[in-house]
């Protein structure tokens, strides 16, 4: 399996997914070698070999020769800071703090830009996997997202093994459909067409792959992310401990501060909510390039005193965040899945999520809304804050529903798809 991020080095759902998927797959008897970029602190888990690729010592010439020169990647717009800012080392357990600066070392070895780093990673990974294959004889190679697709394709070609590509999000999603970067689209398009089997995290994403990338429906499968409810169970916190008045109502935003996730709409809805419910407080958790703009917006809307920007929340603190909140809002413009929704549900926190999210295909116990509908979001927030019975029913129902979405089920789906890929059934419609 070729990945990019893995706990404790993570920025989003991809790491969580790889962590739980590999763990459950190994329980199902799947032997995994997991390839990922080198981090300053080595990553190690009990259920598989983690092979960390150190591409800083890899010659630039090699990368350029495999995937083209570096000059074309000088300007890459919104993606420039993606990893430097986002791929922070986070604490998985309390007390274990990974050293800072890991991201820099990992992503910009020898001062490389992001795209060059991706290029080098893929190129080196492909070579390394092929090398390992001589000894390990892999049955299949599984790649996650465009960032590893080229390696997957190269390995499949060289070693003659089927390759499976999971699409967690597309470039259209990540940029809110506004300025997709052509280079990445190219990799995604090529990847989903070349892979023996493509796994999409929702029907929504699958449809997008067919429509926009011309993916072959017969080689496309949908699976859903899941949730390990254990960290989210039985947390009770008083809001006073966090400096909120006892009678305050807390509305949570927990996602990257990027156009894709719709934080602006969240703030505008917050202003509407405050017109009717002055006790409401808004917590914005997450970091991203929109932060300066959002703080300004909060001031302009006259709600700066009621909004708290808390920055990126490490994994171990997230359950606290949900437990202390009255309602969680994810107003994503385009959300392939949305694992945080399951996290909030597992915590018993009511959820308001945009209709344009994959997760709303699987869960019922949440409120859905159009991502642009400021008043719609605000009136739903007010509904949950005002009517205790609704909060209770959504909380209980959500918790129950989240419990039913376990990773072992997802893993057994994925294992079944592996079987299809190995048997070469990708080209046929399999019931």
């Amino acid at each position, binding site marked *: 399996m070729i990945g990019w991020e893995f706990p404790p080095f993570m920025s989003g759902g991809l790491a969580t997914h790889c962590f739980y998927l590999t763990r459950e797959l190994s329980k199902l008897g799947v032997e995994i070698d997991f390839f990922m970029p080198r981090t300053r602190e080595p990553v190690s888990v009990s259920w598989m070999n983690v092979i960390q690729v150190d591409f800083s010592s890899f010659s630039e010439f090699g990368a350029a020769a495999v995937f083209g020169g570096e000059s074309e990647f000088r300007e890459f717009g919104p993606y420039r800071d993606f990893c430097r800012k986002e791929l922070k080392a986070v604490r998985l357990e309390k007390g274990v703090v990974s050293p800072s600066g890991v991201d820099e070392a990992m992503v910009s070895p020898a001062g490389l830009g992001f795209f060059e780093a991706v290029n080098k990673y893929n190129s080196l990974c492909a070579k390394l996997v092929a090398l390992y294959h001589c000894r390990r004889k892999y049955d299949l190679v599984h790649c996650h997202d465009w960032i590893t697709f080229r390696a997957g394709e190269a390995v499949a070609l060289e070693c003659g093994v089927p390759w499976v590509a999971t699409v967690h999000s597309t470039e259209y999603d990540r940029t809110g459909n506004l300025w997709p970067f052509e280079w990445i689209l190219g990799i995604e398009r090529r990847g989903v067409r070349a892979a023996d089997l493509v796994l999409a995290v929702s029907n929504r994403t699958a449809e997008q792959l067919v429509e926009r990338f011309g993916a072959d429906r017969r080689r496309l499968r949908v699976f859903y992310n899941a949730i390990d409810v254990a960290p989210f169970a039985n947390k009770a916190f008083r809001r006073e401990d966090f400096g909120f008045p006892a009678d305050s109502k807390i509305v949570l935003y927990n996602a990257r501060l990027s156009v894709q996730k719709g934080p602006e709409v969240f703030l505008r809805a917050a202003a*509407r909510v405050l017109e009717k419910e002055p006790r409401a407080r808004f917590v914005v958790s997450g970091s991203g390039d929109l932060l300066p703009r959002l703080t300004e917006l909060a001031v302009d809307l006259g709600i700066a005193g009621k909004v708290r920007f808390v920055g990126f929340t490490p994994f171990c603190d997230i359950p606290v965040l949900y437990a202390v909140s009255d309602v969680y809002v994810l107003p994503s413009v385009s959300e392939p899945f949305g694992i945080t929704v399951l996290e909030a549900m597992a915590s018993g926190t009511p959820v308001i999520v945009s209709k344009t999210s994959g997760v709303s295909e699987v869960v019922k116990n949440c409120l*859905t809304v159009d991502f642009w509908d400021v008043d719609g979001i605000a009136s739903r927030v007010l509904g949950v804050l005002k009517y205790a019975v*609704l909060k209770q*029913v*959504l909380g209980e129902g959500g918790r129950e529903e989240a419990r039913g979405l376990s990773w072992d089920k997802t893993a057994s789906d994925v294992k079944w798809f592996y079987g299809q890929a190995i048997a070469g059934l990708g080209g046929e419609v399999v019931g």
Partner: protein
Amino acid sequence: MARLLQGWGVKLLASICLYFHVHQPFRLKQFNVFGKRGHCLRSAYFSEEVNKHYFEKAARQCYLPANKVLLDAIEETGGAFKASFSITGTFVEQARLFVPEVLDSFRALAETGCVEFVGETWGHSLAVLYADSGEFREQVRMHSRMLRDEFGARPSVFRNTELIYSNDVGREARAMGFGAVLAEGFETVLGWRSANFVYRARNNGPKLLFRNYRLSDDVGYRFGARWWSQWPLTADKYASWLASAEGDTVNLFMDYETFGEHHWPGSGIFGFLKHLPRECRKRGLEFLSVGETASRYSAVDEVDVPFALSWADLERDVSAWLGNKLQRACFAELESLKPLVESAVAVEGGESGRELLDVYRRLQTSDHLYYLCTKSWADGDVHKHFSPYKESSPYENFINYMNVLQDFKEEVCRRAQASAASVVGAKSVEGIALKEGLV
């Protein structure tokens, strides 16, 4: 064959009791909590556009053509064909607003004397489940008045909303002068007994007519179902089933919207309805209205129904409307509004008071609670089918309904206080005038 069976003590069916339920709720608007509400409550809460759309569609597809078929059947059989209707107050009001011809066609049916109208609550409400029976009785009286004014009818048989029946309902109906009540013929209360006889409620209560749900659902539910082994159902085949049934009467109770709405005209449902009277009469079966059925046959046994029974969903209880906490919260809110509305009406009176009462009755329609149902299995689809708010979940429907109820509550209190204050104000002005010797 028939004689042979009779020799064995089996009694073949003598008559058919057809009963149709006619109802349209006042569907809610997506209430905007941020906007400024207009003064007219009716237009602020209820969506004229949506209601008009549904009513016109139903009138075109069901009410007008089905009434025509029945009228023809009555004429063709020289008045031997009989049917019974329960028509809700909200339906009549919408008919008046949107398609008055529908009322005319029902009046034409009423004038034949072959159609009986059944009493119920005016707004298809669950008022019978309130702790205090005052509201229930008021609504039933209101409905009877409406039947008298619109169709010149005096109901003698009662049906409660969604066929909700229990011993209490029977007692209430009896107290209000009804001689018979309709109920669901479900095994939980009938046990081994057949629904094809007339029964009596406990303690010498009213007579009970139980719905034969298998034969009723063959038409109401399965008629257009291609997965059904008996599809397609013809009038001939169905009449032969009726003729071979045992008992005194077979009670076929169904939504009137079965004809043309639940089963679209292309399914052949109108042809079925048209030919059914002829096919039945061919087999010697008589048609009786609900009142005639109740008086023709004497009760064979007493039936005890301690818990509420209804014709909805697989459970046949009230869980379709009060199954989850959201529904119960709204229901409690409705019930608690009663004294507030009453006191507001007492101070306000006049047009404003009538508006408050009317809105209160419209809000009590059980459909609003039905749309909040979260049962996830097969019945959930039925709920979705009947919901006008297809885009939104029960949770969103709850927020909207509760927002309306809260706004209404505030308005009721505001009006009550305003008029109380104006009375006080007038008095104090008088007082000052007295003191200053101006009067």
